[in-house]
């Protein structure tokens, strides 16, 4: 059977068919999770962001006019919710970004602890946490999701040139950090 398009699922949701929305969650949950995870840095926070994103999408979907792709609209929500989560966490914990995203495992780190294993990060993932929040978002969406610059620009409400520049700067910073980590 042919898979329904996003537009068809949205239409059925607007006609009170909740299963259409559930299918949209299934379709996008992993992508939203990884944007959130790489932006906010931990599984626990990313889990909250994913739920918040879909709850806001659920509430806002009736206003969605279809002018843009659904995923552009959804990603924009994900970016806003993720950045907001960072802002709230920073305020709550009174920590500057650098300290909050140090990415160095604590001395009592236990790899066999399921909770701690969730927070395991590769060198690249640690490096991403060193980036300014908006560059984290740009890098994640371009490097992992390969979103075209034109769509990225729409999601971030920036110019295409500005988005390319942001991605390049992010890659340069990451390259510097990763090389340093591998050298030590």
């Amino acid at each position: 059977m042919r898979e329904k398009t996003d537009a068809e699922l949205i239409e059925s949701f607007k006609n009170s068919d909740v299963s259409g929305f559930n299918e949209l969650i299934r379709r996008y949950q992993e992508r939203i999770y990884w944007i959130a995870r790489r932006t906010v840095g931990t599984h626990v926070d990313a889990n909250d962001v994913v739920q918040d994103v879909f709850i806001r999408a659920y509430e806002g979907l009736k206003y969605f006019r279809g002018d843009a792709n659904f995923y552009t609209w959804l990603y924009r929500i994900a970016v806003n919710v993720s950045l907001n989560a960072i802002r709230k966490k920073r305020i709550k914990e009174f920590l500057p970004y650098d300290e909050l995203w140090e990415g160095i495992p604590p001395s009592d780190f236990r790899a066999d602890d399921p909770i701690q294993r969730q927070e395991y990060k590769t060198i690249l993932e640690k490096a991403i946490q060193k980036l300014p929040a908006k560059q984290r978002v740009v890098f994640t969406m371009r490097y992992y999701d390969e979103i075209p610059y034109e769509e990225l620009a729409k999601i971030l409400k920036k110019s295409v040139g500005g988005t390319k520049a942001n991605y390049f700067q992010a890659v340069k910073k990451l390259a510097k950090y990763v090389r340093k980590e591998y050298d030590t």
Partner: protein
Amino acid sequence: MTCTDVKYTLADYLRGKVSQQEYRDVRDHLAVCELCRSEAEGLSSFFELVKDEKHWTPSDAYWINIIPKIQQRLEDRRVKYLPAWAVRFALPMAAAIALIIFSFKYFNTAPLETNQTVQSALAQLPQDELQYYVEQQSIVGVIGDQISNNGSIVSGDDKVILKNIIQVGNYSTESEFDYESLLDSISEQEANNIVSILEKKLDPS
């Protein structure tokens, strides 16, 4: 291609994510530009280092449980949940509007002090809450085109903006504001003043 164009394309070039034309343009530029070549070598070694990194991923059970969790939270919200901004923004707005309508109907004071009362309600709203609130309006497309890129409100029809804000407040709080009465009771100038306050809160500079 200029050096800047090449730099901005390098990451995609090195990962094979460019068109054939872009590939040829970058390759030809690198053949003659030492600076860009050096940049390319640096990025190339980076991509080589990270390409096989394996990251932790949640279990299948995690993905299966997302929908039930979201449905549960939606159900809880229907019953009891009011978002923080609604408590801090929509409810003061509702109180202000109720007070205005009450004052107008029963005391018939003239001129109506809508602007002052709403200003007072808005004054209590933290800047970041308002920023977040307006972003959400923009996201859901309610007042989308009326929000410019830097977050300021740029519509000429301030009454429409206020109406939309209040409508969304209604939806989110599941309460009923008599926004038509509010809008009937304030002048274009007052609506304009209120929107100016919103703009200043969004962008104090």
